[in-house]
């Protein structure tokens, strides 16, 4: 049997993204955010995750996508990074998908810019492409 792996998927600006399920701690709906002045723009703020202070990263900004329309409530995908838990803010949560290694393909050469370092590649699902994110890179708070 071919090697498969599970991904937690979510949507950002109608694109489908996925992170490896084993790196995800939990998914929660939007929480109250405390902004951090002077922090890099990708840092949305801090959230209180049951007594643990977690930094929230604006994934749209991290991936150089258009800012979310005003009034949308982002979901928190809390992932485990080397430096503790980090919350990735996403538009909408998708399903957990199981994919075979064979459906993976590296990003095309035409994908340029710094986003390339965050997107490991894509899995070719039946009807669409799932962008695979590098959790460590996605959690980095410096501007891309």
């Amino acid at each position, binding site marked *: 049997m071919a090697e498969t792996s599970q991904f937690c998927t979510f949507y950002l600006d109608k694109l489908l993204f996925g992170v490896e399920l084993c790196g995800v701690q939990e998914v929660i709906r939007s929480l109250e955010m405390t902004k*951090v*002045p002077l922090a890099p723009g990708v840092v949305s703020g801090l*959230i*209180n995750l049951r007594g643990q202070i977690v930094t929230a990263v604006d994934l749209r900004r991290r991936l150089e996508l258009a800012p979310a329309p005003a009034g949308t409530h982002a979901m928190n995908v809390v992932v485990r990074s080397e430096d*503790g838990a980090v919350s990735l803010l996403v538009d909408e949560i998708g399903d957990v998908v199981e994919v075979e290694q064979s459906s993976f393909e590296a990003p095309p050469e035409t994908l340029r810019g710094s986003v390339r370092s965050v997107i490991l590649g894509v899995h070719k699902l039946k009807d669409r492409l799932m962008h695979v994110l590098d959790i460590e890179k996605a959690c980095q708070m410096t501007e891309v």
Partner: protein
Amino acid sequence: MNENDIVKEFLVESYENLDRLDRDLVGLEKNPQDREALAGIFRTIHTIKGTCGFLGFGNLEKVAHVGENLLTRLRDGQLTLSPEITTALLGMVDAVRQMLRQIESSGKDGESDYPDLRERLTRLQHAGVATSPKAAATAESANSVKAIEAPDPPAEVDSASATITAATPGKQQESETRHAAEMPQPAPRVAEDEQGQHTAQTPSMQASASESTVRVHVGLLDKVMTLVGELVLSRNQVLQFASRMRDPAFLAATQHLNLITTELQEGVMKTRMQPIGNIWGQFPRTVRDVALGCGKQVEIEMEGKETELDKTIIEAIKDPLTHLVRNSVDHGIELPAERIKKGKDPAGRLKLHAFHEGGQVNIEISDDGAGLNEQKIRAKAVDRGIVSAEQAGRMTEHEISNLIFLPGFSTAEKVTKVSGRGVGMDVVKTNVERIGGSVDVHSVAGQGTTVRVKIPLTLAIIPALVVTCGGDRYAIPQLSLLELVRLEADKVAKGIELVHGAPVYRLRGRLLPLVYLERELQLAANANATASGDGAVNIVVLQAGDRQFGLVVDQINDSEEIVVKPLRKQLKTIKTFAGSSIMGDGKIALILDVLGLAQRASVITESHERALGERSMEGTAGAAEKQTFLLFAGPGGSRMAIPLSTLARLEEFPVSQVEVSGSQWVTQYRGQILPLVRLSVVLEERRAKLRALRAPPAPDSGPVQVLVLNHEGRWFGLVVEQILDIVEDPADVRMAATRASVLYSVVIGGRVTELLDIPAILRSAEPNLVRHSAAAGAAEGAS
């Protein structure tokens, strides 16, 4: 409890006891007459020996046995402690520790039974004393008592006689009493126990010391702490819900829940804190070993042992601190002969000092040795290509000293020899920085070196002032806080002046640079940036290093104890924040790093050498026992004070704003009527008081100086002649008061000052206030 558990317990307990042993032995060397310490050491070894006999660790038992024999002789006064004996005993402690480690890893106490060590201990035991066989016999007999075989050896007779002699301790009987103390009991309890029971010798005698503590896994504590955090949030929700309810029983229950939760939260937070003394305990031994090894005499002094740090931090700084201590002895302090030549005491001094400052924990390790050799460090740094010759020429002494922390420096052995410092200093720096701290070295040639380790208060609980700015709350560590000033809306324009665009405020005649938090944090500036709705300006006067500045915030909320949580590594680069904290309502507040903020706002720069308010700097550096007082001139220019803690704000009202309601002076203050109590009236004799009471303020007099106080929920202003100063003083020279409304006369700042009794003043002013609110007019004097 299976055998494994028993062994584990034994290991943990023994490790703890051995750590204490190191300390006790070194202490004993200084004071060989300390019989209690000796008895304590004896007990520890005795317990280890007894327990490992029971658990079947033969080799360990053998080593402990010879050690015990030697200790018996010492305890009985047949031998006096010499450095040689101490070294041998410490060697035994090390051997025991080594074997315990072996037991921990393999379950066996190892192959070696340390014949050399045992031989040495035995030799020392017999050295120079004729009566050795008897002593050995005593020790043996004690052991058999321990094993509960009780064949009634001669020692038993001794013990029995000691029951009598212990009550009348004489010089001669002293040693016999010690025989009785064979039983591992704390010395004072011996006689008593023996009267009750002849063979009180269970190995659980340490229960008295450890009964009050329980070992808990840190993971469990963490979990409990998180759960308590959750509980606090739930409590808050319940409280909000309760505020809409009318059921008194339910309200009472929620009130109770509220109190208990708060206490529980405090209690749990404290469980993780440990005094730094826990790791300092081993330093006397370290110092002794290193000093002995290089033929030096070193006295160690410790201050601030009780300074509390989070357990994880304590563990992280243990090695760096040990290294610094070793380094100070090894390289810092000179040989006795050299010291005498320099006119110093042959014994060097090593001082450890821990204290909280500026929201951080500072640990200073200072010696009075030779100091760093700047010239050689400079030369070497250039030689090694770490800095260019030109750079080195421009560097200050302080910068040069800190070159020793560079990795290139430390690994080179030759530099070490020349400069006297450096092995592993980069490792120290790395380790301290890993937990977010910093290391700094100051050295004065010929006088010594001080290494200061600053550790963030990660997870430490600190009192903080909570302020609001741009809609978010920020916490300011109380340690940096000097005072709060509120400028009313109509004073803002006049109160805040500009020095070529830089805002300043005149605080008691000195210019206080103002920093607007909203601007520094680049928060979206709304039209009325710093006003708190009513146009007033709140200034938080802060101390950053040796300077003061005023931080302008939107609103001052409250002071509370907060638990500091570190920021993520990447957010740590923002120097303005020291950490974050979860507030009572579950929301997060950032903790301001006052120094970082000051640097950002350029309050502190090298060229900016204008130190404000030297006197208060002396004050803030002072000890914790000092109290802070507000000094002011009372009627007739007399010097008076109130504790600063009772003061809410200082205000100045022009005479035109003071109105007279009946006989009471009042003013409109923040939408309320603030009664003004005149000190001149309260302190006046009764007859004159009546007259004074009715008099309105003279229209041409200057503005009225008012101390705004809050007493039991009521605001009032105390009118004084002139505000003088804020000082810190222990105020321990006191004399009884000579008039009413005065607590006592004290010496503050070298001058006699009357400390006011606020409640008494209010009591004497109160009848007026009450009457006015009921029916205006009745202006009879105060009680």
